[in-house]
């Protein structure tokens, strides 16, 4: 039990599952979803990282243009990345010219090692390199423990070669991807990819569905960014966790309700003079039953929210 809790603490976005390990590798069986012409998503398991799921818990995928392929989030472990790469080469012979990280979390990044031989341009938020410097070793160690102890199995990031501080356009040949970076929201290294041709928004973990959102950036910042994303002319979104796609902006509803509830409940607690001790067990309880892994993460989100909002000036 100690080890289990430790690992959850170590890799809080991909701690261990409470469920018994699955017999077969979940990720190997799951199929790609082509959400729009040339846009492929491998939906992740809505569970925490385990040896059985190989940390294939995030939605990852790629976009194919006329001349090249861009990978968006290479996967959660070396094997997860290798499987994604095999699927790409089964679909197209075009070169994998771009690798884009939506943010710093290991379940989205550690599969990058599988793409080293492609020598892609590695596109990430301007904050990514520093954030990975602070966190990468810790994430790898935590995942290696879950997967059985070998750091090579955990995978690694490839260092960013193109830092985005506002926006960058990527031309895949007849297909322009607009990459946009944001201030602190889900994390402080979030970026999105927008494909004009199909009006598809790849939101990374700025959007969670089914799995409880994990707050690792700024609560009010996240709500602001969500408002900006809703104003885009997108018709569909690829969330970072949950189904391969959702209609947009309707798909923002659940997450927006959850984050708004966190803000409302924490502000009310602060107004009553309540202490942070009470946050973990009282905040956003109306959301229980609406999200998977609620019990594992809501308390932590509540503490984070309290810690941020206690600095606000009283109204």
């Amino acid at each position, binding site marked *: *039990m*100690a*080890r289990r*809790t*430790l690992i959850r*603490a*170590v890799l*809080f976005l991909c701690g261990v599952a409470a469920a018994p390990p699955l017999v077969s590798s979940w990720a190997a069986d799951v199929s790609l979803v082509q959400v729009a012409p040339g846009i492929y998503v491998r939906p992740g398991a809505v569970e925490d990282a385990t040896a059985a799921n190989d940390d294939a818990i995030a939605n990852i995928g790629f976009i194919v243009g006329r001349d090249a392929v861009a990978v968006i989030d290479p996967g959660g472990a070396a094997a997860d990345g290798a499987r994604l790469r095999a699927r790409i080469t089964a679909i197209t012979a075009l070169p994998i010219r771009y690798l884009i990280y939506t943010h710093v979390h290991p379940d989205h990044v550690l599969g990058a090692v599988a793409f080293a031989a492609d020598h892609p341009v590695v596109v990430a938020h301007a*904050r990514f*390199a*520093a*954030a*990975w*410097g*602070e*966190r*990468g*070793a*810790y994430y*790898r160690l935590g995942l290696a*423990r879950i997967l059985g102890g070998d750091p090579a199995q955990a995978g690694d990031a490839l*260092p960013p070669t193109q830092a985005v501080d506002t926006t960058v356009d990527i031309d895949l040949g007849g297909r322009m991807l607009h990459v946009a970076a944001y*201030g*602190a929201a889900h*994390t*402080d290294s979030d970026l999105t990819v927008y494909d004009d041709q199909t009006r598809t928004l790849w939101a990374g973990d700025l959007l969670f569905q089914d799995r409880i959102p994990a*707050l*690792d*950036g*700024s609560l009010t*910042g996240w709500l602001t960014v969500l408002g900006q994303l809703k104003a885009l002319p997108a018709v569909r979104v690829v969330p970072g966790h949950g189904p391969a796609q959702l209609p947009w902006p309707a798909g923002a509803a659940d997450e927006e309700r959850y984050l708004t509830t966190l803000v409302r409940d924490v502000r009310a607690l602060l107004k009553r*003079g309540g*202490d*942070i*001790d009470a946050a*973990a067990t009282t905040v956003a309880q109306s959301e229980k039953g609406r999200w998977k892994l609620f019990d594992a993460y809501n*308390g*932590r989100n*509540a*503490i*984070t929210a309290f*810690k941020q909002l*206690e*600095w606000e*000036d*009283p109204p």
Partner: protein
Amino acid sequence: MTSRLFALALLLVLALPLQGRAEDQTADAARWQDLRQILFANHTLAPAKGQIALEAPDRAMDAALVPVTVTLDPGLPLKALYLVVDNNPAPLVGTFHFGPAAVPVQVKTRVRVDAYTHMHAVAETTDGRWFVTDRYVKAAGGCSAPATKDAALAMERLGQMRLKTVAEGPTGLPKGAVTAQLLISHPNYNGMQMDQVTRNYTPARFVRDVTVKSGDTLVFQLEADISLSEDPAITFSYQPKGPLSVTVRDSTDATFSHVFQGDDKG
């Protein structure tokens, strides 16, 4: 500084095997015996019988922010309060030295917990008596885990403070006493997160000393170490003798001062 970082790194390595283990009563008892020797060598610590009580969640949701409440017998002539998280790389979280304006009935703060651990609170009185109480806390990863969620904000807000009056203070407060919560914006980098590229640890920069005065009279001085959570928070009671002034010094010797006229920000 370098030798200190090296020491921290060494402690981290030594601490690692502790993380994954279950409660081991023999090892825990030995650990406390060692710490007691190092920290309180010449003193007999009497098990507290109502003089001091320690509260913390049994199972913390966030190991980097574990709320701790120490409640003290109002009749005790308190001189100092020591807070120890036994299995942390730097076990002594801090020492509160109380001054004449203090009303040490209750103290709350937030700590990092790196491995399943006993926590000890030790009270020292002005007449040379020592009392100890302890509590077991299940939480792990709070020291080595990345804690700062918005690095830009942490530097922008560095050294800012908030003072909030706590309407419902602890019971047993004498007439006229006031309870307040002090928030100090400081990332409290503990030097334990290794940069994968450079193989160096993110340099430690943490709050070393917090001195709070009411008018010219000392409320308390806190000597702190890396086990205090990011953005240190301290709830305490005092007798108002004028505006509350706070001076914070960190491990780089940067100092931040503010005088609060009432509920105020600095």
